[in-house]
């Protein structure tokens, strides 16, 4: 990992003179890094974060508060000099109207923030570009099964056939994704992603190693020495950037490989790889039906296009289908841009969704800025006097408009700064979520965990749009007919009015304010459900979760024993050694642990009901897991009725299962599950009423819910546990029950695993509660997003109400004066003054509450009623200031107001 402050230093080096760097900034960053290193050695994460945060804050304080002021420091920038009068006025207004500054900043920042995040998501995840030379011409070939429109990877035989005859793609290459343990010297083995890849790759990507040579065709011949090309990161972290690394050895699995080259920084093609070994697959060694699956890619020949290449490929596909109907009858090769072959899960629909997400965020910017424009208009109205005087002194309409625009721009820029900072944070979590869910925690080489420069340009554009709306709209309104007003009268005479559109806007906005808590509360309930899930039935903080897998090949001495047998033996031995460790009170394994995402399937219950085809009552979606015999024992979950698993359940044909309480409640309607029989439906025939081929399983036991929330109507929380045959799940998850903090046990576990079997891959070591399904995090993120949205909406609405009333009061000063002078009672004057505005507010609230009630399907009547009262009360509070101000007007002052 890069030490903290590196990027900051790079930015500073561009801004400041060499002396400033030498005497001020470099010492500070060197100390920050030294302190960070100390904390790293002590292994305290929170302390490291705190040091980073404090270091960065200190840096900015230093630059802003001292750097600019110190005469000796040649800053090279004098930001305050030469700024136009308008900007200075804008800055002054920010300070003077603090309320507007805060509200405007928060609202605009939120809108711009959502724009940035949506755009970043779109450009980085939906429509990314390959950071390789002429990357748009790199393509992939995939197979589409025309029978069910499934996409699948081609086989080795397909690859060889295409390579020999395709002309519109030059340098066709293939790779296989492997996970092997890497061992450098005496270091602990660690599973890494290795690409078994054709030598042609390095012509396709047009990248050269920084050291040594790329893979060449000679490396692919059987019997050639085993060689490996390593990535820049690997070279730095595992070989301390040794310039003589070429010729050194590392082991992948148990096979020593000689390093022949180091690829440049950032190169991790095809996905997130740091090791490349030659693809040595000879089609002659495999029958066609067992041909290994590979991924195929290449570079379009000069002048060729995707559209032109497809017909050529279709012909090859048809030839293959005719020659090998048993395997290729329904298969059709398609040529696609390289990235599209990796995002197979993304359909055109979700692309549209994301695009409309972008559009929504732009709409949000427009809406929010319209609101800010309202506030700015109210402020401009209070400055009508100033504007009239300026006009009288010869300022044209354009001059006044530009002044209001610059004022709005200053505000928008402050908001944009805030937005970019928070967008960076949000992008980090979104990025982590995407890489975890879509790429299993591997970061594709074209993705950046920070906001891209393109997005910053987009943010600047949004800022300009925001400023234009918030500046020009009020400007237009204030300056319209200003000449007439100048001739007629002064301020306070009621020259300015809110138009019909503004009125509708206010009503709508108040309505939205009333609606907004409904989704927030709904999501909050879901989040609560997830949170409760973590504690349901177990003490997650006492357990360590570990994922174990094993290198599939290249294990010497493997002859005579099957892979499953070796994996089972290694797992059992590790279990035995762990149980002997002090501080460990239990060890068990399962295909999936509680709180992980479980796959779900449809089931039938009992022969009779299945035969009757009772679809609604007897078919359910349930989740399932395979667990070791001692699983419930180690997790301290008692068997509620029936019996636990015993070794007899592992016999072939035993087919026993244990179900959880939710299963008994949801699937069996609270009946006793013991003795009932269940059967999975054929997943390919969801609509069929019979599933003849799947065997029946007998329920022998009932356990409490583990890691599943107690409420919720989703039947997928019903779970079926099958007994796990040793070695029957690869990878397998291990749960270690420890006394004290389980994470302290992680390194000991790794070294035990190395002793047991060097090919054993240990990954995803985490405490149980950290394993919580990704869904929980998505929900939490969504909840915070909605909460922020709700906050911004409520804030904008309340300030909107406030400014409308203030505006009304300020515009009708003279009217108030006359009414009071003629003997009008304060109560009546106020009533006349605010009748219109209050009607709008109450109307808005009513509309909003009705819609909210509909949305929640009557689920939250009480909540909505209480919230309605709160909204009315708060709106009334917002009117308090303007009303008092109106009542304080003395008749004589009011009439003198011209």
């Amino acid at each position, binding site marked *: 990992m890069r030490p903290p402050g590196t990027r900051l230093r790079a930015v500073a080096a561009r801004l400041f003179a060499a002396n400033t760097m030498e*005497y*001020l*900034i*470099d*010492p*500070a960053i*060197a*100390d*920050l*890094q*030294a*302190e960070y*290193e*100390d904390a790293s*050695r002590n292994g305290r994460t929170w302390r490291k974060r705190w040091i980073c945060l*404090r*270091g960065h*804050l*200190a*840096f*900015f*304080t*230093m630059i802003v*508060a*001292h*750097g600019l002021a*110190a005469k*000796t*420091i040649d800053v090279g920038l004098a930001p305050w000099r030469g700024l136009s009068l308008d900007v200075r006025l804008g800055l002054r207004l920010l300070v003077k109207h603090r309320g507007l500054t805060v509200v405007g900043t928060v609202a605009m920042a939120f809108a711009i923030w959502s724009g940035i995040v949506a755009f970043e998501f779109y450009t980085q995840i939906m429509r990314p570009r390959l950071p390789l030379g002429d990357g748009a011409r790199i393509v992939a070939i995939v197979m589409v099964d025309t029978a069910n429109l499934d996409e699948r990877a081609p086989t080795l035989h397909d690859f060889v056939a295409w390579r020999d005859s395709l002309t519109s793609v030059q340098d066709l290459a293939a790779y296989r994704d492997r996970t092997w343990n890497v061992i450098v010297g005496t270091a602990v083995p660690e599973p890494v992603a290795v690409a078994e890849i054709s030598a042609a790759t390095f012509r396709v990507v047009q990248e050269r190693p920084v050291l040594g040579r790329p893979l060449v065709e000679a490396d692919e011949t059987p019997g050639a020495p085993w060689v490996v090309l390593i990535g820049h990161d690997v070279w730095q972290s595992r070989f301390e950037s040794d310039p003589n690394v070429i010729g050194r050895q590392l082991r992948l699995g148990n096979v020593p490989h000689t390093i022949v080259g180091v690829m440049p920084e950032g190169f991790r093609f095809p996905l997130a790889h740091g090791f490349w070994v030659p693809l040595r697959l000879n089609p002659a060694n495999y029958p066609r039906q067992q041909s290994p699956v590979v991924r195929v890619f290449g570079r379009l020949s000069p002048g060729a296009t995707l559209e032109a290449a497809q017909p050529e490929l279709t012909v090859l596909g048809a030839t293959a289908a005719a020659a090998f109907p048993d395997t290729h009858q329904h298969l059709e090769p398609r040529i696609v841009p390289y990235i599209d072959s990796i995002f197979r899960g993304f359909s055109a629909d979700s692309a549209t969704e994301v695009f409309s997400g972008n559009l929504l965020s732009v709409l949000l910017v427009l809406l929010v800025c319209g609101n800010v424009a309202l506030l700015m208009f109210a402020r401009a109205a209070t400055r009508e006097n100033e504007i009239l005087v300026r006009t009288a002194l010869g300022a044209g309409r354009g001059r006044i408009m530009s002044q209001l625009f610059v004022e709005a721009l200053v505000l928008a820029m402050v908001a944009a700064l805030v937005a970019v900072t928070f967008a960076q944070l949000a992008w980090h979590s979104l990025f982590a979520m995407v890489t975890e869910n879509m790429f299993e925690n591997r970061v594709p080489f074209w993705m950046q965990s920070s906001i891209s420069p393109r997005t910053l340009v987009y943010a600047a554009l949004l800022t300009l749009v925001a400023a234009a709306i918030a500046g020009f709209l009020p400007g237009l309104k204030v300056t319209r007919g200003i000449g007439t007003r100048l001739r007629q009268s002064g301020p306070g005479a009621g020259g300015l009015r809110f138009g019909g559109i503004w009125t509708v806007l206010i009503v709508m906005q108040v309505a939205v304010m009333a609606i907004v808590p409904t989704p927030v509360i709904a999501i909050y309930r879901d989040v609560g459900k997830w949170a409760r899930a973590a504690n349901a039935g177990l003490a997650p903080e006492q357990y360590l979760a570990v994922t174990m897998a094993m290198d599939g090949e290249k294990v010497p001495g493997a002859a005579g024993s099957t892979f499953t047998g070796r994996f089972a033996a290694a797992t059992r031995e590790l279990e035995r050694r762990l149980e002997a460790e002090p501080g460990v009170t239990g060890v068990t394994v399962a295909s999936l642990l509680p709180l992980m995402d479980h796959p779900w399937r449809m089931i039938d219950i009992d022969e009779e009901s299945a035969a009757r085809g009772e679809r609604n009552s007897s078919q359910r979606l349930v989740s399932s897991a395979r667990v070791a015999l001692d699983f419930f024992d180690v997790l301290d979950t008692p068997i509620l009725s029936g019996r636990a698993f015993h070794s007899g359940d592992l016999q072939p044909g035993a087919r026993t299962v244990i179900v959880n309480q939710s299963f008994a409640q949801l699937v069996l309607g609270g009946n006793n599950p013991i003795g009932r029989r269940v059967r999975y439906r054929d997943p390919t025939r969801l609509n069929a009423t019979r599933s003849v081929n799947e065997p029946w399983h007998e329920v022998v036991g009932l356990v409490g819910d583990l890691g599943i929330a107690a409420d919720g109507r989703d039947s997928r929380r019903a779970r079926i546990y099958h007994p796990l045959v040793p070695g029957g799940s690869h990878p397998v998850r291990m749960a270690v029950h420890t006394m004290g903090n389980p994470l302290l046990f992680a390194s000991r576990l790794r070294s035990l695993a190395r002793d047991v079997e060097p090919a054993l891959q240990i990954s995803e070591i985490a405490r149980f509660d950290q394993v919580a399904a990704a869904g929980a995090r998505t929900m939490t993120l969504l909840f915070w997003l909605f909460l922020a949205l709700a906050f911004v909406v409520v804030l904008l609405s309340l300030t909107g109400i406030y400014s409308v009333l203030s505006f009304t009061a300020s515009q009708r000063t003279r009217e108030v004066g006359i009414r009071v002078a003629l003997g009008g009672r304060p109560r009546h004057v106020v009533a006349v003054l605010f009748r219109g505005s209050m009607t709008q507010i109450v109307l808005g609230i009513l509309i909003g509450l009705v819609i909210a009630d509909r949305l929640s399907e009557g689920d939250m009547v009480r909540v909505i009623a209480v919230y309605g009262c709160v909204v009315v009360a708060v709106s009334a509070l917002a009117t308090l200031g303007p009303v008092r101000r109106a009542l304080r007007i003395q008749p004589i002052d009011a009439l003198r107001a011209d």
Partner: protein
Amino acid sequence: MTDRRDVLYGSLGLMILKTLEALGPLHGYRIARRIEQISGNQLAMNQGTLYPALLKLEQAGWISARWSESESGRKVRRYALTAAGRRQIRVQAAEWQQATGIVERFFRIQEDAS
């Protein structure tokens, strides 16, 4: 004009000089920690003020600085007291005593009055 920052600089400078006198050459982060420690953690040392202060002292010739390696082998800028710095400590200490003495008298006036 004397503003609060100058006062802070004055006392911070003295604290840094005294720290270097007591402990010998140190880098910025150790100086900050030491000042916090001596103050009984009542002062939270902002590094944003520390480095400009160090630079000021260096330009006055009271401390010298050079790049060297820390205990963990990392490159850091280490500050040491100069002879002029040693004299400055005596001057500043005297001034400080004098200044606090004066302020002290004002407090006594108030107490007498009450």
